[in-house]
């Protein structure tokens, strides 16, 4: 389905999601009047299955399942152009994050599995050390995504070598002096304490 030809199935609209579904968050989704400035300014529509304004419209109609199944939140780069230009301050990047977090916490499989994997491994680095050790993050990503063995292997190895040779890869992992507080921050399985 390309953005140009995307058609939405017939809906049974419900306002329930905006009233109660967001667990205290809001994102001003109800304020959208459909000007589509979000979509016209978005740099990534070429790779999206739902256009930004369609995400807002589906949320207004309570079509959560369709939103959770979409690639769009994972393709969004959080560049904040839509929010900056929105005349109604609809926080679309914040809502895209909300959808991603919901899927992550449910342990769901997502279409953009590589992006979820990268984010998950990144957070594991932070939870463990308090800072990100890029060398470990990238190695683990390549191993778990198949990139260390697949056709990308030679390209990745060459880039890694070029960066290492130029001193752009650190060999010793960073570590904070105090790390106990990290447990409390990452322990909860819920979005809110």
């Amino acid at each position, binding site marked *: 389905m390309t953005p140009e030809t995307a058609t939405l199935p017939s809906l049974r609209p419900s306002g329930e999601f905006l009233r109660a579904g967001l667990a205290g968050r809001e994102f001003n989704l109800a304020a959208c009047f459909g000007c589509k400035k979000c979509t016209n300014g978005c740099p990534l529509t070429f790779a999206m299955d739902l256009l930004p304004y369609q995400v807002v419209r589906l949320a207004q109609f309570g079509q959560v399942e369709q939103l959770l199944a979409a690639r769009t939140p994972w393709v969004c780069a959080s560049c904040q*152009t839509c929010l*900056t230009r929105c005349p109604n301050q609809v926080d679309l990047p914040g809502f895209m994050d909300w959808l991603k977090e919901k899927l*992550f916490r449910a342990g769901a499989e997502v279409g953009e599995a590589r992006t979820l994997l990268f984010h998950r491994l990144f*957070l594991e680095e932070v939870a463990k050390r308090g800072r990100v050790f*890029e060398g470990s993050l990238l190695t683990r990503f390549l191993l778990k995504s198949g990139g260390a063995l697949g056709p990308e292997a030679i390209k990745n190895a060459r880039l890694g070598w070029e960066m290492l040779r130029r001193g752009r*890869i650190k060999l010793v992992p*960073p570590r904070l002096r105090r790390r106990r507080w990290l447990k409390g921050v990452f322990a909860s399985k819920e979005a809110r304490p």
Partner: protein
Amino acid sequence: MSKVGYYPGCSLEATARDYAESLEAATELLGLELVEVPDWNCCGASAGHSLDHRAALNLGARNLALAAAGPQPVVVPCALCFNRLKSAQHELTQDDSWLTPEVAALGDWRGTQVVELNQFLTSPAILARIEPLVQRRLTGLKPVAYYGCQGQRPPEVTGHPQAENPTGLDRLLASLGAEVIDWPHKTDCCGASHAVSRPDLVAHLVGNLYLRALERGANCIVTGCQMCQANLDLYQAEIARGLGREVYLPVFYFTELLGLALGHPQAGRWLDRHLTSPRPLLATAGLAI
């Protein structure tokens, strides 16, 4: 020496070592002492705000509280770290119930003044300090200034006065003698963290930036964001192959050119960390190092 707080962020310890080294050298030449936030932690970056809102806010609040005890303002070289710290402050001001007891007990995070490094170093006061110190004018360099996303947007969070058309780097580069070229893609997105998981998206966005920069007659790109620098520098040969044309656009950190113009002896070392070597361009421009 006036003291300024300094939050480097994780990348500046590795991928963006050239940024770290050049900004430390340049600020020293300007009589600024950077005081690193003690025991700072990762800002959470894209992963934090994408998957764990609570962690993102707590990571930000701890940094803000630790930075509050040191000199103000606190400069942040990485645009994404800057944005994450400002976002945490903005959102927690409205609702601080997200904080864990340990982080809340660290102290006040409200008053910390977070400033992006490129905005700080391009303020009129600092520009006035820079101009008389210039030893090598950067004539022959025709840069486009590339600001990226996170330093500007959204302005309600960043406080940026010109979110759609920032001009700080343009003014700095002009005062260093470079022949700055205006372009309308200053704040377009480079794809940021997609470089690892969806490099095809980054190739598309960065390829467009190359073409637009070349159309305007630029011979280099100058940035103040280490994700932009990485995405535009590391994969340039490959993205050019995809475009089916030759691209040679060295991607400088503004601090590298500042150090070069002020005559810092280490400038060559920083630039040799780039994958797209700026040396041929500098030689053509009569600025060989």
